[in-house]
């Protein structure tokens, strides 16, 4: 009897020991086939190919405040209060909505995880590693650029730029707190990232959702232009122009279509767009400001490609450049490069050269053989014309707001924006003065509270 009990005890202990040692391995199996940790370059490739996280996260807020569109009373009053506040440039917002901030920093997180993982992953595929690293730096730089347009004051070329910039996060650890850098430091970082990307990225890419060397140059041209560094903007734009200079001929587009632009068309260099249905960009609602609409000639094909008749004389927008719904195109394209070249050449005293670029572009925008370049007597005249063409071409391209901010620095080109509130009984007009502090959006309240960073004054 005793012996029997002892035997059982031994049996149990052996079984137990066996179980403990073998079950650690038994439990190492991953519970879901679709999840993983970033372990291979393939994982990183997949993270950077996730369009909705990489190419579709640009702040919707950037187009909300412009004068390109308006909403009538019923449309705006049925919107969320926050959107109404944005639309009417309210000084105090009901709350500051985190989506624009968070979407971009979500992309920055992916870039940071990719860059951290690249250091850990041993792989002999150096070219893929270089390409992935270049892409990560590229999206990080581009995200910071768009964030700076929304949340920072205008960069002034040749000035101190000590104002508040953005918190520069270089790692994925959520416990690390980062304070806001200065505006100068922020733009230094953006330029550095994009320059690094320009070095690392390949000349050719398989799809336009991945950035190429040309995309990095185009992004640099955009950023330099905003920084009023026209020399560098021109240099970068020329580098793009030398790589490719294809323009779409609007005569060949399906003008009647609700989506006239083909997907990933030839003129596009890099595809990026804002979060869909972000804020107020709902196309069924928005009406194009008649002041803008009237700028187009009848023979200008853009008038038909971009706009649709909503009845009652109102015009709607249908010419989404990325052929998406309710978002703006935030990527790089050849038409913008032509416009940058035209503007920079003119600003730098080579007007006739600049106008050649402009003519080349507009010839493809007008009905065949209809475009005539006007004669200009002064540089300013030419510049005004070029800037107006810039506005007409780059509608809902994430450009208007940054142009307003940049051009307001120049007395001659500053613009006062206005919105009308017509509730059927009386009309009230609201203005946004040039260089108003409301050109800078407040940082979401939760970022201020949880991140402990300084809020913008508005």
């Amino acid at each position, binding site marked *: *009897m005793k012996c*029997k009990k002892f035997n*059982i005890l031994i049996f*149990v202990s052996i*079984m*137990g020991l066996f*179980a403990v040692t073998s*079950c650690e391995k*038994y*439990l190492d*199996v991953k*519970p*879901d*086939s679709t*999840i*993983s*940790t*970033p372990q291979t370059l*393939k*994982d990183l*490739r*997949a*993270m950077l*190919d*996730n*369009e*909705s*996280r990489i190419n579709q996260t640009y702040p919707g807020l950037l187009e909300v405040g412009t004068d390109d569109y308006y909403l*009538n009373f*019923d449309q705006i*009053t049925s919107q969320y209060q926050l959107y109404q506040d944005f639309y009417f440039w309210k000084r105090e917002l*009901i*709350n500051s909505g*985190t989506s624009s901030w*968070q979407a971009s920093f*979500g*992309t920055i*997180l*992916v870039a*940071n995880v990719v860059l951290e993982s690249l250091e850990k992953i041993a792989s002999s595929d150096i070219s893929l590693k270089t390409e992935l690293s270049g892409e990560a730096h590229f999206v990080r730089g581009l995200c910071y650029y768009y964030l700076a347009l929304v949340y920072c004051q205008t960069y002034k070329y040749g000035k101190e730029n000590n104002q508040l910039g953005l918190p520069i996060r270089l790692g*994925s*650890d*959520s416990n690390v707190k*980062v304070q806001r850098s200065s505006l100068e430091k922020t733009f230094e970082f953006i330029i550095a990232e994009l320059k690094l990307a320009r070095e690392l990225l390949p000349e050719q890419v398989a*799809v336009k*959702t991945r950035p190429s060397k040309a995309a990095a140059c185009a992004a640099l041209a955009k950023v330099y232009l905003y920084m009023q560094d026209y020399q560098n903007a021109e240099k970068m734009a020329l580098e793009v122009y030398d790589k490719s200079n294809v323009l779409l001929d609007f005569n060949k587009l*399906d003008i009647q*279509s*609700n*989506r006239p632009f*083909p*997907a990933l068309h030839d003129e596009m260099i890099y595809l990026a767009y804002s979060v869909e249905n972000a804020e107020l960009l709902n196309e069924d609602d928005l009406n194009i400001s008649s002041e803008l609409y009237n700028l187009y000639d009848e023979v200008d094909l853009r008038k038909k490609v971009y706009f649709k008749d*909503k009845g*009652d004389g*109102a015009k709607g927008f249908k010419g989404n450049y*990325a*052929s*998406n719904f309710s978002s703006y195109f935030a990527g790089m394209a050849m038409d913008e490069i032509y416009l940058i070249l035209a503007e920079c050449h003119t600003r730098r005293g080579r007007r006739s050269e600049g106008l050649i670029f402009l003519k080349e572009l507009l010839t493809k925008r007008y009905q065949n053989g209809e475009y005539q370049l006007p004669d200009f007597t002064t540089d300013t005249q030419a510049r005004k014309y070029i800037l107006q063409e810039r506005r007409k071409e780059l509608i809902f391209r994430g450009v208007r707001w940054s142009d307003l901010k940049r051009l307001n620095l120049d007395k001659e080109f500053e613009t006062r924006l206005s919105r009308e509130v017509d509730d059927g009984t009386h009309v009230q007009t609201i203005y946004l003065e040039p260089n108003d502090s409301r050109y800078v959006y407040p940082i*979401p309240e*939760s970022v201020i509270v949880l991140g402990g960073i300084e809020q913008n004054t508005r």
Partner: protein
Amino acid sequence: MKKHIFLFLLSFWVSIAAKAQFKITGKILDAKHQAIGDAIVRAGTVAASTDRNGKFELVLPNKHGHIAVSHINYRPKNVLYTFPDSLIVTLERNELALEEVVVYSDGYQSLPKERATGSFEMIANKVLNQRSSLNIIDKLESTVPGLQFDRRKSATVMNVRGLGSFSDALLKPLIILDNFPYEGELSNINPNDIESVTVLKDAAASSIWGARAGNGVIVLKSKRNAERSKGKWDAGVSFMVTKKADLDYLQLMSSADFIAVEQQLYEKGFYKSALSNSSASYLFSPVVKLLRDIDVGKISKPEADRQLERYRNINYKDDMEHYFFRNAVLQQYNASYGTHSDLLTSRFSVGYDRNLANAVTDKNNRFTLKSDLIYQLGKNLELSTAFQYVNTTANQSPSAFSFPINPGGNRQALYPYAQLVDENQNAAAIAYAYDPDYLIGISDPLLDWTMKPYKDIFDSRTDDKMDYFNGGLNLMYSFSKNFKFTGQYNIEKQIQQQQTLFTEDAYFTRNLINQFTTSTNGLLTYGIPKGAINTLSGNRMLSHRGRAQLNYEVNNNLHLLTVLAGAEYSKRTSESSSSRVYGYDVNLKTSQPVDYVTLFQTYRGLAGKQSIPYLMSDQMRENRFVSFFANVGYTFFNKYTVSASARRDASNLFGVKTNDRWNPLWSVGTAWYLSKEKWMQQIPEINHLKLRWTIGHSGNIGGITGSEPIITYTKAPSGAQTTLPRALISALPNPSLKWEDIRMINYGLDFGLFNNKISGSIEYFNKLSSDLLATDLIDPTSGFSSMTKNVGKLLNRGFDFKLSGRIGHGRFSWIPTLFLSSSKNKVLEFYGNLSTGTTYTTNAGTSMRPLKDKSLYPVFSYVFAGLDPLNGDPQGIYKGQVSKDYRNMLRDSIQNLSYHGTALPPYYGAFRNEFNWKNMSVSFNISYKFGHYFQKETIRYASLYNSWISHKDYEKRWVKPGDELTTTVPSMNYPADTNRDTFYANSEANIEKGDIVKLQDVQFSYAPDCSRFLSSKKLNVRLFFNANNVCVLWRATKSGLDADFLGIPNARNFTIGLNVSY
């Protein structure tokens, strides 16, 4: 001495004759020679009842004669007497016996009620039979103290003693079938195969199940064969009719009112700009088009009026009730055969269910087979096998319409005066997704783009097939009298296949083909080939479990020690896949390839740019567990019991460091059998009294985390520009994440009084859930705005009270059972998102909104200050003043909201009554829920104008000054103001008390005595009729709503059935 006096007091003398008297004494015993008290002993007009020692005395006029002995729990018996006999009569228990020896089963051991320290609740077969249903779980509602059914979600959530987690996914109780967790579909279990259900409510009862027992455990015990030695047949058949849903319950506006609103809006120019703007995907109702046609002179006024009058008198609700729904009919057939001998105990059963569901297109069948065999292979060795096979098929329509129909095209509910079936019984078209006038204007020869709901529900179908197999092997070897080894193995396999076929005629198919059609100068090219669209999806689940367990038991008169210890493993793999083919030919089973890569320009850009929906997927999940467990129970002097259990679980939770995988959980408990104390036995009124106390921990598994970010691969959404493999970061690193912990303390008192005529229990519990997984806000600059952390703490406190009686006389008995449970929860710690008022007042109480010091389903509303007597605007309070500043009131902070309480009933229970007389039995169950609040729907003018969502409260709206005294519904305003609508809808005016009393079920059953006309005495026949969800007896609200349901409440059903056993 005292005893004798009591005996005298209890003795019941009926008649004492004046003439010759013979005193007959005797004793009534059961099969185990235990005395039976309260038995009625009758001879002619003289009767007496037995005392607690089973003794009786009768003084009778005759020397010889018959004595009839009866007792509610025993079969009646006639005996002969001859003076001066001292009779000893043995009674057999009858089948309706109430107080059988209750043995709890927790899946590891069987535990007699006397030795239990924990909180168990067993539902016997008889109670399960009182309600008919396809599903065993449905039989538990309102029959178990402490088990609450929350039917406000799309899937019913059961909770055992309140909530233990902040996330819906972690609220499920663990379901055990016999010895192992059940992973298959609950609807696979044939309720006729279940003997009893035991609910394990406290830590001592459930912590043996460790990390998965945090929400309580429900143990289903299969029927084993009865004690009889020869074969026994059992067969049953029943028919259940479930009434169709009452669509009027939704309280939508009448057609006449809807048209009146549209006419007013038309006059005010509401549709003017939209009508002139020819947007394809913007629907107008026929009335608005008619009004426009009058204006443009397309139709004459009298003709239009005639049409309007026709519209006023129709409502598509009638068409839906008439053509889309029917009374459901469920037929259930089952048969079983069992034997019992020294060598083999067996039971085989077969069942077949056929259900024609409420929707005319839906039906389902279930076939079940089950066998349980126990072989006695020797004196010490017992082998048992269990086998179960289930096959189910279900057919339904994937394009079924719920009421109200959502027509798309920027609307959310169809205008009420639609006609779904025309005068000739043909399906009629409705405005759907695209403006009908726009569709007519398309010159390209596209496929018909109109929607005819009554045709469409038949043009596509979903067929589900499932095979389920469950096999178990159980080996029990007794080393000695004390030692026993049990080895168990269980395998479950479930294969589900679903085919969804949209025929070429289905709207879904036509719409998709049209969208991907390109017209170049009138020449059409098809992105999706013509033909049907066939989607297959499959699910395969395979689970293995094994357990090795040692039991040790010493039993002498003073000490009873039971020890069990063991280990188990489980592995559950589930794979799912789906695929779709286009251009499918139903007869040839052929399909055609499509281009998934290109981003197509949809027809006229109506749906933007899209790629053809790609539905190929494959996924696999695997959960593995390893656990060690032990349980000790020690009873001494038959009076004192202590118990303890411990368990450690480990799983392959992704990313968790090995060291953190193990989660130890334990419980201890004591019980004191007071009524066995000498001094208690002096009080004869108290037959049974037991005090219990337990404490312990159990857990909840959830959350996937690691020291590195976790990425998840996803599929490209339709409309994506590329189809490259893509992954997103789904979680930030969080290596400190743990399993949720639930600490439960239970105090219990069991009692039996007056010969156990009254028995019951009172229990109090205190359940503290900590380390609850909840979202904690983090700086959005990190890329995430929140992160799952163990930050929540929730306290549940309450009681379960149960009182049963057995009141009987002769062949009549009344067995009432009353129970009342309370469970109140309060969030102790929560660091997650605190939002402004709107979040808490919108759909108040329907979802968990953890908020410190509040219940988990808090009901908040805006303070309502009546209607403005001048214009019927709703008014609230802002900054202490009566206000109409809706915009600011909506964003007011939580402190300024009105807090009503919880939406989950804090008090609930039932009063079950059973009456037996001779062969008949009637039972009914009244259930009640108290102390909760709900928000009722109301009219929202902006939704009415823009989305056509209507509500009958429109009829009660403020129209003229003075109305504010009798109504709270605001006036109809133009233009509508969403803020005003939201304020009113979410204000105090729409919060109602949920208290409700329902007649849950009624049963009548009759078991005729077949021995009268059949020679065989073994034949038992039982006929029954029952009704379920009978009616609401009382409710606190005047709105006629049932707060237990968010939509239409479960419909009443009636069952008639017959059971035969031989």
